[in-house]
């Protein structure tokens, strides 16, 4: 039984499912193509930055949205950042949720904004879980391949 081949297939299937479900889009492939020997952890590094930055932004958004007089310019600025970074790494559903969020923000619709924040959070934690699993599998595959099992 070829353990490595099985792992490889599982990894490929898992990766594929992320695209099928629209959690990731082609931009993620772009990131993968940028990774090379000079920077073998590039994707992991960028995604880690994305996790850190997104959580910061989500916290900021929560704070701004509970104020009595909501500063919608601030909300827009934060959502714009999150939309940008999710787009840059191919986090498709997060990006879409941000687009909807922007519209409610422009309309200064508080309830809409609050709902959107929930939605963005949900999509963010989903992609975070999926990508963490992705990296774990990738690491397992790499380790198994290197241990010389045929």
């Amino acid at each position, binding site marked *: 039984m070829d353990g490595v081949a099985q792992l490889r297939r599982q990894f490929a299937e898992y990766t594929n499912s992320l695209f099928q479900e629209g959690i990731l*889009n*082609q*931009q993620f492939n*772009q*990131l993968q*193509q*940028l990774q*090379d020997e*000079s*920077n073998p952890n*590039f994707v992991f*590094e*960028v995604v880690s*930055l*994305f996790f850190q*930055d997104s959580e910061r932004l989500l916290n900021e958004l929560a704070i701004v949205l509970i104020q009595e007089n909501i500063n919608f310019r601030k909300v827009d*600025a934060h959502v*714009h*950042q999150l*939309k*940008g*970074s999710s*787009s*840059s*790494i*191919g986090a498709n559903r997060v990006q879409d949720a941000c687009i909807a969020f922007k519209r409610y923000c422009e309309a200064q619709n508080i309830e809409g904004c609050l709902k959107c924040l929930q939605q963005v959070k949900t999509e963010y934690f989903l992609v975070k879980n999926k990508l963490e699993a992705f990296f774990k599998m990738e690491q397992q595959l790499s380790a198994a391949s290197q241990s010389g099992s045929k």
Partner: protein
Amino acid sequence: MGSGCAAHSSSSSSKWVMENGDEPHVLAVDDNIIDRKLVEKLLKNSSCKVTTAENGPRALEFLYGTFNGTGSKVNMVITDYCMPGMTGYELLKKIKESSATKEVPVVIMSSENIPTRINKCLEEGAQMFILKPLKQSDVKKLTCQLMNCKG
């Protein structure tokens, strides 16, 4: 085909002055940390030396500094349009207004495909306008132009 990367170029030819055999030195400006890392990698993969700046004022500071011998000559500036404080458009204007820096090609990036915005930038002297998210092919196109300058 995805987000439809539109790269718009100005029709005026400009001498993108490059020292022979050197790697182009690109100054990349973006307030988003992920985008900075991405553009840096894209440029490095296209054999460019890269300096990043997180806002317009810092970018200008660096750019002027290179004329005083701090850091090597900048061959191109690539900047995000939407930045708090000084926008990419305002940065473009400042670069084009100064006789010291006006020859430096400036490329604008934006996540929004707004024709009036694009035209405004091209009219102000932007070399090119690129839609985000950036792809390797966008950057290759840019750097090819930069390195193949035939004057």
